[in-house]
C-alpha cells in the first residue's frame, strides 16, 4: 500500500520525494546565473570604467591647458543627474584645441551623478583663466582629460563581481563534477580528494587505521605529573566569565545612555516618564547581568583549576585505567562528583539553520564526595579506577554525527553556582587484530 505523503518528516534516502535530477538542474541554473551575472558585471566594469582610465594612463600625454569656461551638464536621460564640464584650451603641434572635457568617461557620454553639490564642488576646484595640467590622446589630439589615474571606486567595482564569479563558478563546477554520479562515487571522490589520492587507482579504499574514530594524538600531547597524560579540558570555564563580562559591558553602556537621557529630561523640568520607566528596566537588566558576571568571577577564582590525569590513552572497551583528579581553589563544596559519560551528538539542517542535538546514552558515577573543604595549597585529590564497559561503542566522529565520551567533573560550591568541567576521552574498538589496509 502506498505510504501517505507527509510534509513534516525528514525525507532522506528512499523517503525522498523530489527528483534529484531536477534539484541538480535547478542548482546549476542558480549557480550558472550567478556566474553569468558576475562575468557580465565584470566585463561591463572593464569596458566602461577600467579601460577608459587605463587608456589615459598608458597612452595620453601631458600638457598644460587654460580653463576657459565651466558648467554643470545635465544628463539628457535624467535631468536630476549632473556632471562637471570644463572648457579648456591647449596646444599640440602648433595647433590650438578648445574642447569641453573632464575625465575619461566624459567623451563617452557618461560620468553623470545624482549628487549635484559634490559635482559643483569638483567644478569649484577649477578657476576660469587658470592653467592646469591636462592629458591628450596623441592619435586624436582633440580628446583630452583633466583627471589622470584611476578613481578609487574603479577597484571597488572590479572586486564587486568576484563573489558572484567564485560562488557561481565553484557551485556550477561542483554540480558539473558530481552530475549523474551516485552518492557512493561522490563519496569516493571526496575521500580521495581529502587524502590527495586523486591519481591513485584504488579499489580497496585506503583510509586511516581507525576510520571515523577521532585521533588520540590531540589528547596525549600533555604529560601528567602523577599519571602519563593530563587530559585537556573541553571548554575553558573562563569563556563563560568573559562572555558574561562582555554582555554586562554592552548592557551597561546602553543603560548609561538611556539613564542619561532620562535624567536630562528631569533636569530640564520636562520629565519623560516613558523614557524614565524604560531606563529603569535597563537598570534592572544591567544589575542582573552584573550579578551573573560577579558570580562567574567568584566561581572561577574560588573554584580553581580542575586537573584530570590518566595512565593511558586511547582507551579500549573492557579496559581498566588509573585516574587522578585534582580540584584546586579555596571553597567549601556541598558536593563534588566525577562521572563517565557518553553522548550522541547529531547536527542537522532545519531550513537555513544548523542545529545540534545531544542525547546522553551512558552515565556512570566514578566518585562523589559531600561537604568537602578545599583550601589554598591543599587541593582536593583523588585516585580512582576508570572501567570502560566491555560493550561500549567506540568514539565516532563525522561531519554531522558523533559518539562522544568524556569525563565530567561536577561540583556545587556553597553560595555559588555549580561548575561543570568536561574532559574528552577517545575509546577505540576492541583490539582484536588490527587491520592495516
Amino acid at each position, binding site marked *: 500500500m502506498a505510504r501517505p505523503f507527509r510534509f513534516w518528516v525528514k525525507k532522506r534516502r528512499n523517503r525522498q520525494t523530489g527528483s534529484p535530477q531536477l534539484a541538480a538542474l535547478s542548482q546549476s541554473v542558480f549557480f550558472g546565473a550567478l556566474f553569468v551575472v558576475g562575468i557580465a558585471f565584470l566585463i561591463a566594469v572593464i569596458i566602461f570604467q577600467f579601460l577608459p582610465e587605463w587608456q589615459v594612463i598608458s597612452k595620453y600625454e601631458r600638457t598644460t591647458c587654460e580653463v576657459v569656461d565651466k558648467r554643470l551638464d545635465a544628463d539628457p536621460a535624467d535631468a536630476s543627474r549632473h556632471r562637471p564640464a570644463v572648457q579648456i584650451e591647449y596646444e599640440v603641434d602648433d595647433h590650438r584645441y578648445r574642447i569641453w572635457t573632464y575625465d575619461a568617461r566624459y567623451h563617452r557620454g557618461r560620468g553623470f551623478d545624482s549628487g549635484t553639490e559634490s559635482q559643483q564642488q569638483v567644478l569649484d576646484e577649477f578657476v576660469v583663466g587658470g592653467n592646469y595640467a591636462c592629458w591628450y590622446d596623441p592619435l586624436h589630439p582633440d580628446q583630452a582629460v583633466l583627471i589622470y589615474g584611476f578613481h578609487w571606486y574603479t577597484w571597488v567595482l572590479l572586486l564587486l563581481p568576484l563573489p558572484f564569479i567564485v560562488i557561481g563558478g565553484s557551485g556550477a563546477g561542483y554540480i558539473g563534477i558530481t552530475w549523474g554520479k551516485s552518492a*557512493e562515487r561522490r563519496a569516493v571522490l571526496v575521500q580521495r580528494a581529502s587524502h590527495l589520492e586523486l591519481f591513485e587507482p584504488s579499489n*580497496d579504499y585506503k583510509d586511516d587505521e581507525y576510520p*571515523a*574514530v577521532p585521533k588520540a594524538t590531540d589528547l596525549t600531547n600533555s604529560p601528567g605529573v602523577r599519571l602519563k597524560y593530563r587530559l585537556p579540558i573541553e571548554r575553558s570555564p573562563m569563556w563563560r566569565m568573559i562572555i558574561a563580562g562582555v554582555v554586562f559591558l554592552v548592557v551597561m553602556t546602553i543603560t548609561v545612555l538611556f539613564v542619561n537621557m532620562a535624567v536630562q529630561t528631569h533636569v530640564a523640568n520636562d520629565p519623560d516618564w516613558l523614557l524614565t520607566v524604560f531606563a529603569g528596566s535597563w537598570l534592572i537588566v544591567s544589575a542582573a547581568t552584573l550579578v551573573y558576571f560577579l558570580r562567574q568571577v567568584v566561581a572561577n577564582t574560588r573554584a580553581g583549576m580542575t586537573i584530570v590525569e590518566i595512565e593511558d590513552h586511547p582507551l579500549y572497551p573492557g579496559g581498566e585505567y588509573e585516574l587522578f583528579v585534582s580540584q584546586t581553589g579555596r571553597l567549601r563544596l556541598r558536593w563534588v562528583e566525577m562521572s563517565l559519560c557518553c553522548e550522541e551528538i547529531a547536527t*542537522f539542517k532545519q531550513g537555513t539553520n544548523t542545529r545540534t542535538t545531544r542525547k546522553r546514552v551512558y552515565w556512570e558515577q566514578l566518585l562523589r564526595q559531600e561537604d568537602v573543604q578545599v583550601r589554598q595549597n591543599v587541593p582536593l585529590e583523588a585516585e580512582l579506577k576508570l572501567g570502560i564497559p566491555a560493550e561500549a561503542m567506540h568514539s565516532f566522529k563525522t561531519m554531522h554525527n558523533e559518539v562522544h565520551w568524556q569525563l565530567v567533573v*561536577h561540583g556545587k560550591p556553597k553560595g555559588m553556582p555549580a561548575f561543570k568541567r568536561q574532559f574528552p576521552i577517545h575509546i577505540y574498538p576492541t583490539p582484536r587484530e588490527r*587491520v592495516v589496509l
Partner: protein
Amino acid sequence: MIQPRVVVHLDNTRREYEPGDTLTGEYRIDVVNRWDIRAMEVSVLWYTEGKGDEDLQVHYFYRLSADDGDYINPFRPGRFSTRLPNSPLSYEGVIVKIRWCARVRLFLPQGKDVVDEAYFRVGQIPAARAVLPRTDS
C-alpha cells in the same frame, strides 16, 4: 519493456562480521539486453541514520562503464570481496545509527538507475538507550 534488476547476496548468511573479517558476496543481474546496462558500481560502505544529516563513507568501490570501454557481462554473476576495517562498528544508537551495506547500482539509459543493497553488521555493539540526565542536588 522489462526493467533490469540486480540482487546482492552475501556469502555469510548470518550477515555478522568482525573488524578484519573478509566480506564476500555476489550480485546477479536480470536483464534481457546487455546494452541496457551503461555502467555498474559495486560498493561496500557505511552511512549514518538518525537525527543528524547523513554521513557516508565508502570502504570498497569499483565501477565498470560501457562508455569507458569496460565489458559488463550481465549474464554471469559477479563477485566482490574486501577485508573490513577496524571501524566504525555497526551501532544502533538513539539519535545516531551506523549501518553497513554492500550496494550494487546499475546505470540504465536515460539517466535511470536500479540499486540493491545487502545489509550486514560489523561488531557486536548492543543497542543504546537514552539515559536521563540526573538531577543534581
